[in-house]
């Protein structure tokens, strides 16, 4: 009712935003066009040029089609990404559900645990998994201690899934959580009074209402997984070859950029098709946690089939739950969810738990448990100008990236929330595009652009490159909050004499602070853990922390990496606790 009234009021007053709200998205659009579309398009363009003859050529695409290996690797990439997304949802959903029903303060603290994997570098996390899952690893040592045979946990699909799900789970949970917290719990009560058992209430009401969040988390984790290469390379076997690995090999080893461009285009098209299918089914706007805009038109068979499926699920879980309840008793059943959530959180923090003792080891290897303890590796770290310099630069670049990305994405999110333009969907998709393009392709393209405008080997160049990569995440985080913003409050501020800028700073920004903080954190960590742009744009001159870690691992892994991770972790946790304080609305 009230929303309808408000919209009516807005319609009669169309000139409130003099330039139309979409203009707020202009800085973001311009930024992405110059620093993303141009460099990527030029590199991809190589794939259709025949440079000898100066004409168009389809030879590289013909090679992809002729050689089945690329198609098979693409299928494998999709299978691994799909499985990662599926498992992230499966493990993440109960955790998000549990978090959603916690009181707000407790939830804020519990979410910090969920975010722990974010603050450990991909490289370090991956090596931690090697330490945990290896033939002589933590788990197999425990099994051997109890006389059980060792399990093959590494260099196979299981190892890859452990590493990838671990990396993607926080993203899945943090995407689903805002949707779940806004579900009206009274609807579940209502289902109860109408005769639905708790199981039925969950499947037929709560679960359906949380579906937009589930779908968004599924797409985000899937798309992000497509570009993985370090984790599958180190934790997987030959079957877990990802297309990104082949693209990187073409760019760096074979120096065949035209073919790399063709492979990237191949992957890009596949990802875009996925997005298109998603858009047909759920609507892209659900990525920001918006309820499905397609409910009205979803009258088809799909919906009916979905309903039947959920009813069957409800029936199945009633039977299952009943049986389980009889076995373990109702008291234990009540503990099931917290226990499950605790187990998932243990999974999330496990690598960090391994990294901490290794940081204090006296051994030159990543032995676990350490044979003795010392502060050697901290000394190595703090006495090295290169390490400390890289740390300072990484924090600085990440901070600048976070601010830039939050401002640009914030303006764009405001623009789209207020706009009714038919370009909305297209602009939304455009802001998500940097997620889909393989980073190495973007990084090489960006190097050429920066070489022309003098930004190679500069901190500004790093910030710009990282901002492009961080924009989609920042944009999604802010959009999710902005859509729930009550614009009448802005109108009220205007009637009370605030100009547009003051309204923004004094009313809008404080009210969407939660989203802004989330966007800031996402952007910060995107930059902080970025390697491809750091390699190319940094040029080895401006070394960031991931780049320095990468360089340090030439001959062997040494515990300096763990010591660095520990220091970073402590700094970040302190920052996070401060952020959590800021994030809480001053009620």
């Amino acid at each position, binding site marked *: *009712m009230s929303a309808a009234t408000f919209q009516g009021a807005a319609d009669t007053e169309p000139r409130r935003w003099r330039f139309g709200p979409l203009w707020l998205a202009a800085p973001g659009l311009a930024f992405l066009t110059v620093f993303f579309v141009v460099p990527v398009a030029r590199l991809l363009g190589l794939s259709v040029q025949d440079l000898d003859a100066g004409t168009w050529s389809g030879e590289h695409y013909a090679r992809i089609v002729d050689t089945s290996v690329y198609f098979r690797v693409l299928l494998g990439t999709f299978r691994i990404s799909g499985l990662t997304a599926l498992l992230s949802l499966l493990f993440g959903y109960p955790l998000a559900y549990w978090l959603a029903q916690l009181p707000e303060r407790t939830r804020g603290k519990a979410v910090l645990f969920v975010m722990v994997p974010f603050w450990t570098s991909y490289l370090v996390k991956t090596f931690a998994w090697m330490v945990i899952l290896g033939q002589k690893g933590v788990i197999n040592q425990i099994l051997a201690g109890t006389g059980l045979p060792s399990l093959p946990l590494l260099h196979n699909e299981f190892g890859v899934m452990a590493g990838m799900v671990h990396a993607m789970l926080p993203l899945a949970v943090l995407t689903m959580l805002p949707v779940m917290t806004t579900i*009206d719990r*009274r*609807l579940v*009560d*209502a*289902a*109860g*009074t*109408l*005769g*639905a*058992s*708790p199981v*039925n*209430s969950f499947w*037929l*009401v709560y679960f*359906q*209402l949380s*579906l937009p969040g589930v779908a968004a988390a599924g797409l985000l984790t899937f798309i992000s997984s497509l570009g993985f290469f370090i984790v599958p390379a180190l934790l997987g076997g030959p079957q877990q070859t990802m297309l990104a690995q082949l693209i990187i090999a073409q760019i760096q080893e074979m120096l065949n950029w035209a073919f790399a461009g063709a492979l990237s285009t191949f992957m890009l098209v596949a990802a875009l098709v996925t997005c298109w299918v998603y858009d047909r089914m759920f609507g892209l706007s659900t990525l920001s946690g918006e*309820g499905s805009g397609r*409910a*009205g038109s979803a*009258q088809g068979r799909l919906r009916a089939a979905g309903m039947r499926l959920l009813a069957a699920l409800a029936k199945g879980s009633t039977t299952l739950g009943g049986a389980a309840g009889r076995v373990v008793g109702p008291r234990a059943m009540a503990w099931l969810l917290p226990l499950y959530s605790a187990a998932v959180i243990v999974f999330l923090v496990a690598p960090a738990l391994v990294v901490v003792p290794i940081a204090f080891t006296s051994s030159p290897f990543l032995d676990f448990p350490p044979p003795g303890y010392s502060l050697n590796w901290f000394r190595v770290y703090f006495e090295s100008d290169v390490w400390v310099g890289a740390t300072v630069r990484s924090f600085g670049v990440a901070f600048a990236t976070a601010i830039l990305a939050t401002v640009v994405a914030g303006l764009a999110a405001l623009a789209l929330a207020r706009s009714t333009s038919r370009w909305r969907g297209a602009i939304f998709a455009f802001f998500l595009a940097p997620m889909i393009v393989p980073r190495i392709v973007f990084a090489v393209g960006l190097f050429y652009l920066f070489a022309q405008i003098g930004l190679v080997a500069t901190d500004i160049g790093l910030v710009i490159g990282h901002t492009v990569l961080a924009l989609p995440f920042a944009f999604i985080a802010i959009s999710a909050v902005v859509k729930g913003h009550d614009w009448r409050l802005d109108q009220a501020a205007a009637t009370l004499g605030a100009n547009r800028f003051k309204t923004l700073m004094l009313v809008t920004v404080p009210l969407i602070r939660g989203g802004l903080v989330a966007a800031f954190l996402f952007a910060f960590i995107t930059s902080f853990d970025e390697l491809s742009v750091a390699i190319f744009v940094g040029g080895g001159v401006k070394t960031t922390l991931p780049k320095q870690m990468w360089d340090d691992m030439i001959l062997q892994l040494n515990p300096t990496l763990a010591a660095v991770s520990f220091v970073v972790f402590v700094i970040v946790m302190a920052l996070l606790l401060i952020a959590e304080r800021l994030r809480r609305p001053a009620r």
Partner: protein
Amino acid sequence: MLATHGTAQSIQSRSAAPVAAPKLQVDDLTKRYGSFTALQPTRLDVPAGEFLTLLGPSGSGKTTLLQMICGLVEPSGGRILIDGKDETRTPVHKRDIGLVFQHYALFPHLTVAENIGFPLRMRGMAAAEVEARTRGALDMVHLGHLGGRFPKELSGGQQQRVALARCFVYQPSIILMDEPLGALDKKLREHMQQEIKRLHRETGATIVYVTHDQEEALAMSDRICLMNHARIEQIGTPHEIYARPKTAFAADFIGVSNIFRGRVQRDAHGTPVLVTSDGSFRLTGEALPDQDEASLVVRPEQLDLDGEGDNEVSGEVVDTVYAGSETRVLVALGGGTTVTVRLRRGLAPPLPGDRVAVRWRAEAGVLVS
């Protein structure tokens, strides 16, 4: 209708035992959250087919009581009996109760028809029957053509009707309504009041209705249960509550009341009077003992500006309020009280500043402690 009387332990003793067990019995039901008491031990009987309203200001405990009856809130003590059977520990979905929520709580992902069919499907009813009953319910609330729409595509009034249909469709033996009309404008609210009354008549359901709107309570209820400060203040028919309030709160909360506060004494003839700052007024009926603090309640329509009456007090007209069907005159008395007088039909309203005499018959006053 009044086979039994609801009671709040301190106010009134229970009348003779009921002939049959009431539909709903609330027995010393209590709810505490830590040191905060949301509902003091409360007793209440509701006979089958009755329309009972829980009326009171916000925080008076009426919604807590309602939620305990349907099973959404677990009581800290006491029992709930439905048809004489103890249902205190029965989970919400197994109680044969319907609840209409304050903001309707329609499932946004289901169509109107699916919303209404939901409770039927939960009861394992065959698809064909679900459809037939749903259609019947839709027709009953005059929404037969909107079954395929989603709730957000309906107006507030239409959503309210869907909520009602969803509740009535499975014929629960008790229907609870939690301020169901709160979000509607006045005109629509009055219309929906009639709709609910009609549904009540047609189905014979037992209804417990929560509202803070006293006019709504008076218009709809068989009985009103007036609540304040987490307990029952008074229970009775609308007329009883209006005409014979038992406390100053009851008098003040329901309708417009003129309240004179003072002390009970005897005049020269031995007749009980209430001595107030505005004068001494004659009392009738079983008066309270002498010297007790008390309040005299007189409704505006009992006061007269130039009619008969054995109590009289003079004052100055402050304002006249025209309200269409009637005109009210506000008169400031010498002792500082301002009374509201309903002007008798046909009389010309006095002007502000006029001196007038206000009179009423002693029987029209109600003395409350």
